[in-house]
């Protein structure tokens, strides 16, 4: 992926508060076509809130979001049509059959019945769901439910795919499969995924943004992040050093 690829998502100066607590502070992001961006951070860093704002589930208190050239506040219908979103907990109707659910999601994204039927086969093929189409979602294993979650996010072939901790709670084989799928999706779409698993960044992401206390404190290609310092540090050490450095800077600024 090159920086010259067109931007599919850009967010500027996003601010989000819950009551008086500021959860996301002046966050700006840009995502390009064919890129997988990893949003890295501790639990409670503001990753999920940021993704919820990017997908229109939450409104930011200030800042703007543009998806495929459409402002999310002014043209929510056009902007949301370009997005596929997998929240932290897959939004599955557990009493529906996999096929019926995926067709419903395709129709929600304004596909015709014929298009939805074609898209269903494609999405099932990409996510390895061919054998479970007639099964009830609630009876599937967690790994398969996660696959259905990803299938619903990609069924309408969106430009931007937003995945919130897509491999949490899966076994190692499932994690490997899902990561391979995300990598494949990254070739044709723009993918932004949040994670606190550093291995995910190493294997899947082209670029990394680290969020800490609601702010982006680091952003670079994942290859360069792995070369951080003298290049001999493990990714965990890099992450801890970057967030630790930010903590001590914040402490110095707060000191009288």
């Amino acid at each position: 992926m090159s920086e010259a690829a067109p931007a599919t998502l850009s967010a500027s100066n996003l601010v989000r508060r819950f009551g008086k607590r500021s959860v996301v502070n002046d966050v700006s992001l840009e995502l390009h076509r064919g890129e997988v961006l990893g949003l890295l951070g501790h639990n409670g860093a503001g990753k999920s809130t940021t993704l919820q704002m990017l997908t229109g589930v939450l409104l930011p208190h200030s800042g703007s979001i543009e998806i495929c050239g459409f402002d999310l506040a002014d043209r929510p219908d056009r902007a949301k049509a370009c997005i596929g979103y997998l929240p932290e907990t897959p939004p599955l109707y557990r009493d529906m059959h996999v096929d019926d659910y995926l067709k419903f999601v395709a129709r929600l994204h304004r596909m015709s019945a014929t298009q939805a039927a074609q898209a269903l086969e494609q999405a099932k093929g990409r996510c390895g769901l061919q054998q479970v189409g007639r099964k009830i979602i609630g009876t599937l294993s967690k790994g398969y439910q996660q696959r259905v979650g990803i299938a619903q996010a990609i069924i309408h072939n969106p430009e931007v795919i937003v995945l919130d901790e897509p491999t949490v709670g899966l076994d190692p084989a499932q994690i490997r499969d899902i990561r391979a799928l995300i990598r494949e999706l990254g070739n044709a779409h723009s993918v932004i995924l949040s994670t606190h698993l550093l291995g995910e960044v190493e294997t899947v992401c082209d670029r990394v943004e680290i969020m800490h206390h609601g702010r982006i404190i680091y952003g670079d290609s994942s290859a360069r992040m792995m070369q951080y310092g003298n290049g001999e540090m493990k990714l965990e050490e890099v992450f801890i050093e970057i967030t630790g450095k930010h903590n001590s800077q914040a402490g110095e600024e707060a000191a009288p």
Partner: protein
Amino acid sequence: MIRLLAFKELRSLLSAPSTWFMLAALQFIFSWFFLSRLDAFLQVQTQLALIANAPGAAQAIVAPLFDTLGLIMMMLVPVLTMRLLAEERRNLTMPLLMAAPLSSIQIVLGKFIGLMLFLLLPIVASTLMVLVLALGTPLDTGLLLSNAAGLLLVTASYAALGLYVSALTVQPIVAAISALAALVGLWLVSSSADAGSIWHALAPTSHFRHFNTGLLDSSDLVYYLVFCAFFLLLAMRRIHNNRIYG
């Protein structure tokens, strides 16, 4: 989009065995009332024949029957509306709708129309059952249709209120109890208040009584439309507020 959501809601209701059990129980209760009213009418029919302008089968059977059905709907509708939005939030499926190119209006109207399509089943089934009387006696179809229309409207008002209450909470059972409490409260107020008082005019059941006696008044129709629109708008606002407050 509204149609898509409405049919999804209808399919979801019809795919649950408990729904069919509920429909069967409702039809059984209604049939029981119908036959007991019919039996009572047949017992006094010879005496009624001696009275000038005696009430016909429609007045003696249909009106009290639909009045009872209105009360049963008041208890049934909160059980059905409780899951409409509360369950979406409890099962964390709301982000699917919020992130899709759908407006709050489409979400609320889709859910409301889906439920109303389902509720048409017992209303139509009950009306057809009473229509069987026409095989054996002259039937005041005007009174029957007025009752059916009134029942549909009063049920719609219950559904709109229940849908709004369902938007307020994450727990479906809390939504059911709260909606039932609100509807019973309105019913009690209308029963105890004077006929001309504002409290009486506020309750959906008061306006149903006019339909129940065969009186079609445009002000009743306007009342039901305003009542439904008011609570549906509140539900839409609540969904929009989810985006603001999380």
